[in-house]
């Protein structure tokens, strides 16, 4: 437990909190900008079971912001490289991988095993799928999404709370990827850290979880705003 001594010293955590972190089962969907930033912090804090889902391979244009990948990883499956990285970082935890994109058929068979699903996807189709699967099993979905220097963070389907569809009912939308619209690695990493923080709050049962609230942060002006929303029929 020496590895976790600093966080155990927090009165909010202690040995019992560390046991909760160790027992947690967390699925991360998408190991791109958000996913590769969040994973080292989940692994190093000792989350006992991490499952990584992504069918993509590392490309050179990922390297400016997806900092767990190196030039020699280009062409390799992201989940395999990420699994090796997390195993080196913390051999005490279990890291499982699905080297494919989430879909409804196999997703609904496995998603019920997880305590938390982290939405690190980069397109609306996947995001609505993560939402619908987590809503089906009432599993908290820790969400972030970015556009240039702005980002949104929330937690959906938390204790029967509102879902992504309660916030954005539309499913038809132009899909601008980070690559298309432009992004800095530091921007996407910052929103991944908000996600990590919500994950630990949920596991530990501390603080106020961002359920029914959308945190919006504009990094150019440093203006931050919280928007509230509630359950409605679109769930």
């Amino acid at each position, binding site marked *: 437990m020496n590895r976790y001594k600093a966080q155990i010293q927090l009165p909010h955590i202690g040995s019992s909190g560390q046991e909760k972190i160790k027992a947690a089962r967390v699925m991360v969907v*998408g190991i*791109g*900008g*958000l*996913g590769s930033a969040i994973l080292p912090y989940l692994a190093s804090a000792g989350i006992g079971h991490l499952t990584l889902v992504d069918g993509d391979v590392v490309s050179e244009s990922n390297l400016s912001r997806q900092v767990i990948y190196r030039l020699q990883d280009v062409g390799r499956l992201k989940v395999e490289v990420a699994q090796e990285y997390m195993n080196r970082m913390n051999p005490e935890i279990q890291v499982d991988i699905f080297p494919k994109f989430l879909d409804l058929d196999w997703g609904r068979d496995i998603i019920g095993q997880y305590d938390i699903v982290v*939405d*690190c*996807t*980069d*397109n*609306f189709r996947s*995001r609505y799928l993560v939402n619908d699967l987590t809503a089906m099993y009432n599993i908290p979905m820790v969400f*972030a*999404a*970015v*556009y240039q220097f*702005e*980002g*949104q963070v929330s937690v959906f389907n938390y204790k029967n709370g509102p879902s992504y569809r*309660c*916030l*954005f*009912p*539309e499913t*038809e*939308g*132009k*899909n*601008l*990827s*980070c690559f298309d*619209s432009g*992004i800095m690695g530091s921007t*996407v990493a910052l929103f991944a850290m908000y996600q990590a923080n919500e994950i630990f709050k949920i596991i530990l049962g501390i603080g106020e979880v961002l359920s029914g609230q*959308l945190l*919006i942060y504009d990094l150019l002006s440093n203006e931050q*705003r*919280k*928007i*509230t*929303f*509630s359950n*409605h029929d679109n769930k």
Partner: protein
Amino acid sequence: MADLTARDEETISLLMLNVLELYDWLMETYKLESIPFSIAVNNEIVPVTSDVALQENDEIAVLPPYAGG
């Protein structure tokens, strides 16, 4: 959204009674057909089809979903 409308914020003075009329005005003024968005009144999301009446000095936020990750 700021790119599409070329503005971060705007004060409007219109004879709009409810959120649905505001939605229609936004669509017509800024041609927002290509992008979905939600509307918050005083930091609370309201359905865009809502007949919730707007009050003087209400703060309206127009929120598109972001895709990037």
